[in-house]
């Protein structure tokens, strides 16, 4: 019947039928992924009557909405940077640190679980830990007379949210960067040492430049990951902290901005931000694959 050799071209008149095979998939993604997204993008440039306008986009540049974007971006950057840093430290500890071999497997498995443990339960876990009567808060207060609240720490704040997000950011970093660290070949290090390089020089001039695309790419991915997170933020703060996903959630629920099409613009802005971050990730990842196979 049909030849399966990749280089054998099938008769031209049968070609159109091949497309039918992915028709269900095409229909599904069109209806439930692409069209809804297009609706948002187009709606961001429409008046309620359907005409073209830039007023919605301009509407984003009001102080309150800009402030929401700014704090969202700050939280995403902070949790992505810290996540990268701590995740990298932990990953390099298990790859190069000379730790017992048995640690690696369980840590990677745990990372798989923890990077999926986002959402509402994560917020509860942190409330029970760093909240007003959380285990750490109470421990510090009763044993050291150390009041986190007096120091200005509040879980429902910028730092509170950042620390909570780190719970899924660090494991994601470990999962992505460990294979990259494994890809650093022993020969490179040996070659550098034979040529007289110190450990620091090897890292600065060989390992770090090779890892840089992976590191920056993962940073972008972690940024997008934090920027789109809604459930954790809502469960943690209710709606007291005005970040973009919470604002959009409230807008969809009850038109808090007073203009339905401003909601489209708000969502469009989210797609733009996460889209840029992911494009950077994909581009840098393809660059890093040259070295790390």
């Amino acid at each position: 019947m049909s030849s399966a050799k990749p280089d054998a071209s099938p008769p031209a008149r049968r070609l159109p039928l091949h497309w039918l095979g992915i028709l269900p998939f095409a229909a599904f993604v069109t209806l439930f992924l692409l069209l809804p997204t297009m609706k948002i993008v187009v709606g961001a440039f429409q008046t309620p009557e359907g005409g073209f306008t830039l007023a919605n986009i301009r509407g984003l540049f009001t102080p309150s909405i800009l402030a929401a974007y700014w704090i969202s971006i700050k939280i995403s950057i902070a949790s992505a940077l810290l996540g990268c840093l701590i995740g990298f430290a932990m990953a390099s500890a298990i790859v190069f640190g000379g730790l017992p071999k048995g640690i690696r497997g369980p840590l990677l498995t745990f990372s798989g679980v923890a990077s999926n443990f986002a959402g509402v339960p994560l917020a509860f876990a942190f409330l029970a830990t760093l909240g007003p009567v959380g285990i750490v808060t109470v421990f510090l207060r009763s044993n050291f007379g150390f009041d986190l609240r007096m120091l200005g720490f509040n879980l429902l704040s910028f730092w509170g949210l950042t620390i909570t997000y780190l719970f899924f950011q660090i494991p994601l970093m470990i999962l992505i960067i460990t294979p990259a660290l494994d890809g650093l070949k022993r020969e490179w290090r040996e070659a550098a040492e034979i040529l007289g390089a110190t450990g620091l020089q090897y890292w600065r001039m060989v390992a770090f430049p090779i890892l840089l695309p992976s590191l920056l790419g993962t940073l972008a991915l972690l940024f997008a990951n934090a920027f789109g997170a809604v459930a954790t933020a809502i469960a943690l703060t209710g709606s007291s902290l005005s970040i973009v996903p919470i604002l959009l959630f409230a807008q969809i629920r009850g038109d808090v901005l007073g203009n339905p099409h401003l909601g489209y613009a708000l969502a469009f802005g989210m797609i733009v931000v996460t889209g840029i971050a992911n494009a950077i990730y994909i581009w840098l990842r393809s660059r890093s694959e040259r070295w790390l196979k």
Partner: protein
Amino acid sequence: MKKIWAWGALVFGLLYFTLPLIGMTNFSLKMRRGEYSFDAYQKVFADPRFQETFTYSVMQALFTIVFGVLLVVPTAYWVRLKLPRLRPVVEFITLLPLVIPAIVIVFGYIRLYNTSSWLPLTGSLTGTNILLMFGYATLALPYMYRAVDTGLRTIDVATLTEAAQSLGAGWATILAKIILPNVLVAVLSGAFLTFAIVIGEFTMAALLNRPAFGPYMQLLGANRAYEPAALAVIAFGITWGCLGLIQLVSRFQKSAPPKA
């Protein structure tokens, strides 16, 4: 010196990860004043709303898995067999749900499928349930597709198909009796991940007003003190269980080489 740094990083990380888990477990046991008890868990399990929402989410997860398998396995198979040129495109599309936040996708659903639209899915309960299932299938698409595609890589799709065809098998038979059994382990790991995602999902269910487990957890969290911690322990247990099962089935595959 290097070892000290490595241990330091590891201990810091472990402390950071274990404290919240200890915190929530500890808190969930402290409902009775002055002693540890399982009161919070009893309260949660006895709550009819818990049973309702949990059952609802489990049902949604099962439907999503069945739908996802029926959608993804034939597509991934067909793309590999007949449309290899299209692979990068399909792969890109399946990764889109990781790029577009779930809240934006569901916003699009609400605007596109409202009561006055050409496909008024949100107009009826059944319609909304189906829409939510499609939404979950979209969220799970990146994981499901990659799992199945990786599974297909380990078998010789073209030869298996030819052999089956020369024995007179039709497409349905090939998919159900040849391809699916061969990628079953991959499908299962995709299914467990889908299950974990659907059980904990909050945004879509909340905005479509369906009584799922995620919104219930959020509601309870806003009104109670100890029960939410118990729920968090249960949710973590479910995630842990699902990913443990993935490990188990993939180990199972390693011990049994694919019968090609």
